[in-house]
């Protein structure tokens, strides 16, 4: 793995999240392991239901359903988070680890001003007076680029635009200088110009505060722009993981190929139809025992009935049994031109 010299801030080992349902136990996250280094931006991509959000919610200790079972190990700065008493988890949650949620329209409590909501978090973690917490909130709003921050702090969520709300949510997440920021599709609900500003903000967070970031997205453009490393998830498992540059230059898993192949090319002839991955993701009730992608994979073979391990090859991990030659052939077939490597 690259960056071995750097200290790791988060180590997830064999994380499994399952739900008790009427139709039996369902595994939504299945044996996910990942390591995040200091000052690193890791992007987790995959389609809806692939378990990316549940993975970061587990890190936050926010898998709240009484029917959920979270197993495995999550170590944050060497400290085990799974099974940590709620009182101690609360101290970390919102303090050292903060989270930005997907939909800024509904992520803020409608009946409190944005300043109040930020100050509330500050006061939950720091011994600040009301006045100091409010001043801190205003300063945070200014630092995320909200014009007239002292006025905006008095505004209610419904009085702000989507972009402003997301900035408010980000200001809130940053309020206690988190060492680890978990961002769950922070730009999905926003228009493109605002997206770029939010990404700048996340980058600035790393450069100014030295935070590490896990960024969940299904937008490959965002990944290429901001991530150091990428983990691709499918049906609750990580199927491929590599440095961003390597992943875009040489995607190896047929699912990653499919994801990248479905991005319209910027140059050359415009395809009449964008290639799509055939079939639908497996229902969580019926995930294949072997490779979960096999039923949709053009190159599946008998050996795919056994679960492929996530094997590293020069720091590029893939859970697929295809030989390097077969992958190269698949790549040239699916991707006419290499997709814009950063």
């Amino acid at each position, binding site marked *: 793995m690259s960056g071995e010299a750097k200290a790791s801030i988060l180590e997830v080992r064999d994380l499994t999240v399952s739900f008790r349902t009427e139709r039996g136990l369902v595994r939504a996250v299945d044996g996910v392991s990942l390591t995040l280094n200091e000052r690193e931006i890791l992007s987790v991509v995959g389609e809806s239901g692939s378990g990316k959000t549940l993975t970061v919610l587990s890190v936050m200790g*926010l898998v709240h359903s009484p029917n959920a079972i979270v197993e495995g190990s999550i170590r944050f700065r060497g400290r085990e988070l799974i099974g940590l008493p709620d009182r101690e988890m609360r101290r970390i949650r*919102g303090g050292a680890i903060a989270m930005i*949620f997907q939909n800024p329209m509904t*992520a*803020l*409590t*409608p009946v409190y001003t944005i300043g109040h909501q930020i100050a509330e*978090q500050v006061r*939950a973690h720091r011994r600040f007076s009301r006045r100091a917490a409010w001043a801190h909130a205003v300063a945070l709003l200014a630092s995320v680029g909200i014009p007239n921050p002292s006025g905006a702090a008095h505004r209610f969520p419904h009085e702000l635009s989507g972009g402003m709300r997301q900035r408010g949510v980000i200001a809130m997440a940053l309020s206690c200088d988190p060492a680890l920021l978990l961002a769950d599709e922070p730009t999905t609900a926003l228009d493109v110009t605002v997206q770029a500003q939010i990404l700048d903000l996340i980058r600035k967070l790393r450069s100014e505060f030295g935070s590490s970031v896990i960024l969940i997205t299904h937008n490959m453009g965002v990944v290429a722009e901001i991530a150091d490393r990428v983990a691709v998830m499918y049906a609750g498992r990580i199927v491929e993981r590599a440095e961003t540059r390597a992943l875009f230059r040489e995607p190896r898993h047929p699912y990653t190929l499919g994801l990248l192949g479905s991005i319209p090319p910027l140059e050359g002839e415009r395809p009449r139809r964008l290639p799509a991955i055939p079939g639908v993701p497996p229902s969580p009730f019926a995930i294949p025992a072997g490779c979960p992608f096999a039923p949709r994979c053009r190159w599946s073979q008998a050996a795919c009935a056994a679960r492929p391990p996530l094997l590293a090859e020069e720091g590029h991990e893939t859970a697929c049994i295809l030989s390097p030659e077969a992958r190269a052939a698949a790549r040239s077939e699916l991707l006419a031109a290499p997709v814009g490597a950063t």
Partner: protein
Amino acid sequence: MFSFVVRRILHMLLVLVGISAMVFLIFFATPGADPAARIAGRNATPDTVAAVRKEFGLDKPLPVQYVLMMDHLLVTRDLTSFVNRGEKIVPEIEEAAPVTLSLVLGAAVIWVVFGVLVGVIAAAFKDTVIDRGLMVAGLIGVSIPVFWLGEVVNLLTQSRLHDTFLFSWVPALGYVPLRANPLGWFAALVLPWITLAVLYIGIYGRVLRANLIEALNEDYIRTARAKGLSDWQVLTRHALRCSLISFVTMFGLDFGALVGGGALLTEVVFGLQGVGALTYRALEDLDLPMIMATVIYASFFVVVSNASVDILYAAIDPRVRER
């Protein structure tokens, strides 16, 4: 916020004038409802009816009649009963209103406090024995008829157990004015309060629990948890505030209706001479001025409490202020 309050109050006045006009028209101008004949009594000669009509100004055009009636009701306050000639109506209501207000206000305090407690505790312990127990108790409270509960309370406290240490303090049925004897007022009313509140605790607790559980699934609750707040803080600061809308709505309607005479059954069972009892008697005797006055009095409280609720909304939820 200020302009919202002013607008709401103007709106309220308009509604009150409208209601008074409508009530007047229904009782005095519907075909067949000849008030002069009612006042004159049975077997009155046409001459007598005509005299009465002149005396009460009932031969004037309707708008004038309306103004005269409102003048008697609100300004000179000398509107008299048709049934018991000479009995002034406004003082009757003024005497009955404090009884009803005392009864309903006390019950309202009890049912709001316990309704919120039941709702919050049930939601906090959702799907546990505590939750189920509270909801079953709430359902029982909703199902018990208030007159039956009141009679059982009376049976126990006035008769069967009255001589034990438990209920020897319970005074005889009836009202004790607050100014004359605050302690007596409290002792006389505390059982009626509880009796009246039981039903509403059940309803309010159940509704609040449902709203809280719905609110707890909202995205902003996850944000609040992610901030590091405790479950209790999330529940009381974030979920509860957003769940109070239907609670407050129901309160406005119920409170207004009860003060307006809806607590009739409780009043009768506990021998309280309130507005409900007054209305009941007026209806029995078809005492038109009394009915009209009590209806206007009732509508006044319904409208005022609804306006207060709207203003309260704006205080609870900033999104309402801009409408």
